């Protein structure tokens, strides 16, 4: 298992390098000039010097290597410096956002908590709702509960999040006035009242995302439970007189969780990347919203860094899913 994990980690390195090359080239070869929005009164020779200052004069492979060095050496050193209070990075050039002229890593660090709170909580809640629904609808297949559950999950899976979000805003923010429609990220939790306000402003975005995640995961849970309920070992367990509760919740559930756990692990990167739309609907200024504004402002370093972070997360959680699969299912041996 350990050798397998190490081997997979080593394979991940060329994959990530290749992905970084794709992202770099896509943004670099694309038409569109970072200097396009400069005023026309700037003389051409100054414009040229500005281009060189941005590092646009170098040949493309040099720029790629420099970007890699910035991303993999200088930025981690800076993060370490901030945590330990040392000065290992010195004053090496960091990845600078063209929008704000401050290091990209600092802006991302400011945005991560909002995304994690809203989207992460929604994912946890979604999983917590999905598992019991999936178990119960598989156990009572074709009952009214199952029919309702499959219908609701089909609807939750088909209705796009920007529509559910907007409908919830109309119902609960405009008509009933229960919850605010905009997420206020400057809000600080200091006492009970502000805590209640924080909960209230999180209700709508979390509901939208939790519904969407729950509908997907409950479909997997139901299918996996159904597969296992028909197996011979279930009959054996019942035949030796185990209580129904033990049969379903220990024997069947444990085995059905194996594929579901990997699906849950594979879904974690979408917490960061996939919530772009929900963040936009509720004006949460998290990572997704940062990406959108960076794209609209042609802020290439920011877009490159964010997309690459999303790619790293996807590769990482693919690995986690594979390793978890091996740990949970003793029949699977990778060595």
């Amino acid at each position: 298992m350990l050798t397998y994990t190490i081997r997979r980690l080593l394979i991940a390195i060329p994959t990530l390098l290749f992905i970084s090359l794709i992202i770099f080239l896509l943004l670099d070869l694309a038409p569109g000039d970072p200097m396009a929005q400069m005023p026309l009164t700037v003389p051409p020779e100054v414009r040229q010097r500005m281009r060189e200052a941005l590092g646009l004069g170098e040949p493309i492979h040099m720029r790629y290597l420099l970007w890699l060095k910035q991303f993999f050496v200088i930025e981690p050193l800076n993060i370490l410096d901030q945590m330990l209070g040392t000065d290992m990075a010195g004053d090496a050039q960091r990845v600078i956002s063209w929008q704000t002229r401050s290091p990209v890593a600092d802006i991302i660090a400011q945005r991560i908590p909002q995304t994690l709170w809203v989207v992460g909580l929604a994912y946890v809640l979604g999983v917590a709702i999905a598992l019991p629904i999936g178990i119960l609808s598989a156990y009572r297949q074709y009952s009214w509960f199952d029919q309702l559950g499959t219908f609701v999950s089909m609807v939750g899976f088909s209705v796009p999040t920007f529509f559910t979000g907007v409908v919830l805003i109309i119902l609960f923010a405009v008509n009933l006035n229960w919850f605010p429609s905009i997420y206020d990220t400057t809000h600080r939790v200091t006492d009970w009242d502000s805590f209640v306000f924080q909960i209230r402003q999180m209700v709508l975005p979390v509901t939208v995302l939790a519904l969407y995640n729950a509908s997907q995961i409950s479909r997997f849970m139901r299918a996996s439970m159904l597969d296992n309920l028909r197996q011979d070992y279930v009959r054996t367990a019942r035949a030796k007189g185990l209580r129904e509760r033990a049969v379903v919740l220990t024997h069947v559930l444990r085995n059905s969780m194996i594929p579901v756990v990997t699906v849950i692990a594979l879904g974690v990167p979408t917490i960061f990347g996939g919530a772009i739309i929900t963040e936009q609907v509720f004006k949460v200024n998290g990572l997704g919203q940062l990406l959108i504004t960076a794209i609209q402002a042609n802020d290439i370093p920011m877009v490159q860094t964010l997309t690459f972070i999303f790619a790293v997360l996807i590769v990482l959680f693919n690995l986690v899913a594979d390793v978890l699969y091996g740990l949970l299912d003793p029949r699977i041996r990778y060595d």
Partner: protein
Amino acid sequence: MTETVVPTPQTAPASSQMRDIWRQFRSHRGAMLGLAIFVTILVVVWLGPLVWNTAPTFVDMRSRNQGPSLAHPLGTDQLGRDMLARLMAGGKVSIAVGLTAMGLSILLGTLIGVSAGFFRRLDGVLMRLTDLFLALPLLPLLLVMVMLFREPLSQRFGPETGIFILIVIAIGVTSWMQTARIVRGEVLALKEREFVLAARSIGTSPAKMILRHILPNVLSPIMVSATLGIAAAIITESALSFLGLGFPPDFPTWGRLLYDAVDQIQLFPMRVVMPGIAISLTVLSVNYIGDGLRDALDPRIRGR
């Protein structure tokens, strides 16, 4: 006492495979309802403009922001444009994008899946490519692609065709991976079957082998993923439009209509709800059709 074997009279017509599939499909209530709704939407969107021939871009400033009336059954928007006509025109574009993008993605997926499954030498390379695409953050990349290539393409082909081409290609290129994996698996299993061996033994060329023997047998998984692909493509297109990176403003699609109406959501919530319901209903019906097709095409379930 011996029983005499009575030969069963062959009164029922010989059941063909298509008929079996259709019978199984019909027994799936959700799928039938989905098919009915989807066909209705298609008819309304394509034939509706012939009956209701108000132009979707006709601006009538005197009758803006109106509620439903005889002249405008679904009301008008902030520029006095007829909502019914806009919804029909928007649906036409959204569904056309969905169908074309699905076609492209199925074409790519089948091509890569069949080549990877059939030619062993290509397998490793193509599957690494598929894994690589699966590891890309797709929605961010789609946004980036649309942002970067929108100007040159709309200059080359005009704003509407250019964006149409861009969105279809962007969705197609980022959604073929599942199809390729499924098709490859099926092809690998088919290659071990006797009829393929028989065909090979009489010297069938690889091209003919794929066209005559392999492709017809992988058609059913392809059909299922095609149906689900339409739904995914429609959602992606409207998500792009919703983020303001889709079609230009005067060119209605369902996502764009929703996006335009969000600003006035407090005053005119119906204008947001109508395109949203249209998108959701289409996607829901297509997903149900896909579910029914999957059941109908699965020989383990069929006949039960």
